């Protein structure tokens, strides 16, 4: 027999350890070295989801109905896959607007509405009662089990009054503990680092404790899972449990529970608290989205083995399946293990109670009591920071007392899980206003309030009222024949809908009226300005230009500071303001008018302490001229969008400018290049002209000065002069030609030309050259006529130029020149091949440039002007053709051009 004081001592020591952890974490947080700022602690804190329901209730559920306990954990697993999308958005919104609770979130979204916040709070408090009472029931039952250790039979017969009732003591101890944890001081921040650290620790304890029980049962009491399951066929009632048959409500119920738990994991007030409010860094969601489901998986592995073992070992009806986890080790006289498992159950329950009461007390204080207090004139100038704490502590006690009451009134007749599901359905009412609210700007305050109210009333009617009937507080005829004998109003079969189990039935009706009212009323009614602003801020939180001009600053800085000080204390207010001044790099004089952003800052500070709706009321009491009127707000919104529009346009303009600048730069470089080319051209031309001119002049001088030259010499000199002047004329002609081409002033006489005829004509005019140098000419010209559209004289010029070039570079006597004319479908090609020295590769690409002459030929400088090929290229280009050269040095060169066919 375990002495009562032993159990008490262990429990108190455990709670003391928790408190030490919380204290240490708070100290570390104050020193700026948070121990909770990592995804693992975050995940463990989310595991507060696993309460006494999981620890004791799952086994009870599994013992009766097989796998039906699982959707409660599969739902959150499924939901977690969307956390990266949905939860991250909610966290971002909560961080930016300093949301303190789920009530605050909904109130903020719907125009900082006090009514919405209050309604959410009431639903949360009432809805959570069954859940809290579940924990109280679990703790007190486990305490009693331990107390009667190792006798198992006597547990059931208990007569309790309020004052010797374990549940009541447990409630009061937990209340004291939550007060110590969550409301030691009031802070401008809404986060509780110490509490989160303690919860994370509790999550580890409960996981290890439950696994220990599971391992003990599966591997020590039995020889592993296969041994355990091999006994199943021997028990008739157990064979049912390994299939879905045992599931009450079948697959519909399975689906409903999955859906419910998907909503519950995010919108139970305590889950919202740890997921959103206590979140340190939104990137932690990335890991938590799979680590948390993993935690759920681990804590559920041994549920079925324990349930099976309990069913086999205890005679039916002797032991409440909800406490199999404890009674199995007890039946084997495992004292230490039993106490450890008891501690695991205790951590599961206390974790939930602590977070839930703290979350709820914040809501009650900020969204229920504060709005009332702030309207009382007598309280307008009082320091409220003490009052805030008192209110929160009071509401913690209140919440626990309500939970206790529910337990006393109803708890005895329900299993743990069915009590929890009632709370889940209540929490699911918050899903529509939040999920729809963060994605649809049109959802408005009236719609949200009506939806919540309708869902809440429907919940109370279809789930809570029947539980009063079942506990004997209302006549059973209520359930059988309906109120006043109206069958259509039977709570479990509303309007005759009798195909569902009670939970599915309730979920269906509550969601129908909730979503239905929210959407239809939002569509049918109008939003006011503040609603519209908040809706836009929430929906577009990821793509926001921050606008702080909602307030018109006509308050003194000192007034604002006093206001904050009234709620968070003078020291903290001073620090907040000096921090603000420091980060902005400004000096804040107390006497100046606060600008809009400072007012906004003050409002957010206050939101952290008393919630958005109340903060707004308070700030507007100080800031003269109130907030901006509807008309002005719309103007601001317009202005903002105009400013965005302007900046958008500016951006575009600057992009255009950039492009234009680039273009200009390119043109400029080109111009410079052209200028350089022109200079080069002029100097080359002058040089080229000077050479023949010099020799003409030199020989003329010789003739002029030396009368006594022989006739032969005279003739020789004159012929040189003649030749040089011819060259001069040719050069000048070519330069003029080129200049005309380049300036586009050439007169082109385009006509239908027969190309082979042109080639023949050109060859005729240079035939003398072939004869002189004894060079062999081969012609390959097609027999049929080939027509092009061209300037006949120019084309002849090109052909002559190419042929004479070829001749020029061939060795006399054994030179060979081939003229080859081919045609294909679209163009005509002419190749002029010689067997001269060829053109080095490096020079091939320059050969068509003006004045470019091949330099290192053994003949020295050739007689050309260096313009011939340049002119050819321009002529061919003008005709839409191409000209190029192919050559291997030492073998010869082939000049080719193509021209489009006529």
């Amino acid at each position, binding site marked *: 027999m375990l002495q009562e004081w032993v159990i008490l001592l262990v429990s108190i020591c455990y709670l003391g350890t928790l408190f030490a952890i919380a204290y240490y974490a708070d100290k570390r947080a104050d020193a700026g070295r948070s121990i909770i700022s990592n995804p693992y602690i975050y995940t463990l804190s989310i595991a507060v989801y696993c309460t006494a329901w999981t620890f004791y209730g799952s086994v009870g559920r599994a013992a009766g109905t097989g*796998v039906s306990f699982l959707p409660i954990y599969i739902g959150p697993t499924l939901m977690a896959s969307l956390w990266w999308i949905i939860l991250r958005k909610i966290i971002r919104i909560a961080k930016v607007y300093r949301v303190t609770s789920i009530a605050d979130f909904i109130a903020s979204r719907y125009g900082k509405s006090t009514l919405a916040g209050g309604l959410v709070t009431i639903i949360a408090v009432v809805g959570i009662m069954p859940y809290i009472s579940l924990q109280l029931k679990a703790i007190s039952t486990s305490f009693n089990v331990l107390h009667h250790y190792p006798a198992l039979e006597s547990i059931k017969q208990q007569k309790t009054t309020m004052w010797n009732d374990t549940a009541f003591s447990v409630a009061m101890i937990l209340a004291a503990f939550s007060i110590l944890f969550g409301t030691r001081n009031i802070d401008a921040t809404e986060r509780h680092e110490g509490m989160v650290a303690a919860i994370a620790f509790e999550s580890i304890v409960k996981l290890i404790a439950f696994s220990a029980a599971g391992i003990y049962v599966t591997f020590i009491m039995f020889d592993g899972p296969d041994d355990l399951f091999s006994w199943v066929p021997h028990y008739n009632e157990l064979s049912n449990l390994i*299939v879905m048959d045992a599931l009450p409500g079948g697959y519909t119920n*399975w*689906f409903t529970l999955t859906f419910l738990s998907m909503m519950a994991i995010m919108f139970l007030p305590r889950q919202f608290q740890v997921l959103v409010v206590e979140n340190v860094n939104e990137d932690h969601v990335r890991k938590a989205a*799979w680590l948390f489901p993993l935690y759920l998986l681990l804590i559920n592995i041994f549920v079925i083995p324990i349930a099976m073992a309990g069913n086999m070992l205890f005679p039916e009806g002797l032991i409440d399946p909800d406490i199999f986890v404890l009674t199995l080790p007890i039946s084997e006289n495992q004292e230490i293990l039993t106490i450890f498992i008891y501690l695991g159950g205790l951590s599961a329950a206390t974790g939930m109670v602590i977070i839930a009461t703290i979350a709820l007390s914040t809501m009650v204080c900020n969204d229920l009591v504060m709005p009332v207090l702030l309207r009382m004139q007598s309280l307008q100038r009082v320091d409220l920071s003490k009052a805030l704490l008192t209110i929160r502590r009071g509401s913690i006690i209140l919440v626990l007392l309500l939970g206790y009451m529910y337990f006393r009134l109803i708890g005895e007749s329900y299993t743990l899980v069915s009590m929890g599901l009632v709370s889940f359905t209540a929490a699911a009412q918050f899903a529509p206003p939040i999920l729809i609210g963060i994605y649809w700007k049109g959802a408005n305050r009236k719609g949200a309030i009506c939806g919540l109210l309708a869902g809440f009333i429907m919940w109370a009617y279809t789930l809570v009222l029947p539980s009063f009937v079942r506990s004997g507080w209302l006549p059973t005829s209520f359930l059988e024949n309906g109120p006043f004998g109206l069958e259509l109003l039977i709570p479990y079969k509303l309007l005759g809908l009798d195909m569902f189990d009670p939970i599915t039935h309730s979920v269906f009706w509550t969601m129908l009226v909730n979503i239905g009212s929210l959407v239809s009323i939002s569509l049918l009614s109008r939003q006011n300005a503040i609603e519209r602003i908040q809706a836009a801020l929430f929906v577009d939180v990821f793509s926001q230009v921050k606008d702080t001009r909602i307030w018109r600053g006509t308050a003194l800085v000192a007034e604002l500071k006093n206001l904050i000080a009234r709620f968070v204390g003078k020291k903290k207010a001073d620090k907040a303001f000096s921090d603000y001044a420091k980060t902005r790099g400004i000096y804040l004089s107390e006497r100046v008018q606060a600008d809009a952003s400072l007012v906004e800052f003050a409002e957010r500070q206050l939101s952290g302490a008393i919630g958005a709706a109340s903060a707004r009321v308070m700030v507007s009491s100080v800031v003269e001229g109130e907030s901006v009127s509807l008309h002005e707000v719309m103007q601001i919104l317009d202005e903002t969008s105009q400013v965005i529009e302007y900046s958008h346009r500016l951006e575009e303009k600057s992009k255009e400018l950039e492009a234009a600048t680039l273009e200009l730069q390119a043109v400029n470089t080109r111009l410079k290049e052209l200028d350089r080319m022109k200079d080069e051209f002029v100097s080359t031309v002058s040089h080229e002209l000077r050479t023949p001119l010099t020799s003409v002049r030199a020989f003329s001088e010789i003739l002029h000065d030396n009368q006594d030259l022989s006739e032969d010499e005279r003739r020789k000199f004159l012929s040189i002069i003649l030749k040089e002047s011819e060259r001069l004329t040719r050069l000048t002609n070519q330069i003029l030609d080129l200049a005309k081409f380049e300036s586009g002033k050439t007169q082109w006489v385009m006509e239908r030309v027969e190309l082979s005829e042109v080639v023949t004509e050109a060859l005729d005019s240079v035939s003398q050259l072939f004869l002189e140098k004894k060079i062999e000419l081969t012609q390959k010209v097609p027999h049929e006529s080939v027509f092009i559209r061209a300037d006949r004289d120019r084309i002849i010029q090109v052909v002559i130029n190419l042929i004479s070039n070829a001749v020029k570079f061939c060795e006399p006597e054994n030179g060979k020149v081939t003229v080859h004319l081919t045609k294909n479908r679209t163009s005509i090609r002419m190749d002029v091949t010689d067997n001269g020295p060829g053109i080095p590769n490096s020079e091939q690409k320059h050969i068509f440039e003006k004045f470019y002459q091949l330099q290192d030929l053994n003949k020295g400088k050739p007689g050309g002007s260096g313009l011939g090929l340049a002119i050819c290229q321009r002529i061919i280009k003008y005709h839409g053709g191409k000209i190029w050269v192919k050559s291997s040095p030492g073998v010869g060169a082939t000049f080719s051009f193509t021209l489009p066919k006529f």
Partner: protein
Amino acid sequence: MNKSSSLNERLVFILIIGILALNYPLMAIIDKPVFLKGIPVLYLYLFFIWSCFIGLVAFTLRKNPRPKPLSKKTPPPGKL
């Protein structure tokens, strides 16, 4: 923007797979009093799908998904 929206699509896809695999009618296929290695198949199925789902989410949300070097992906010669 593009990258994050494709991540979102992948997550929604995974969710749909999860919902389908863990509901009627797919679950009804496995809903039989049969044992596999001594353990009821329904339990095995649920916990197996559950683990796969967790793995998928973890894989999708892993940090800085780096493309593996191509050479490692090509199968060793002779094993085609």
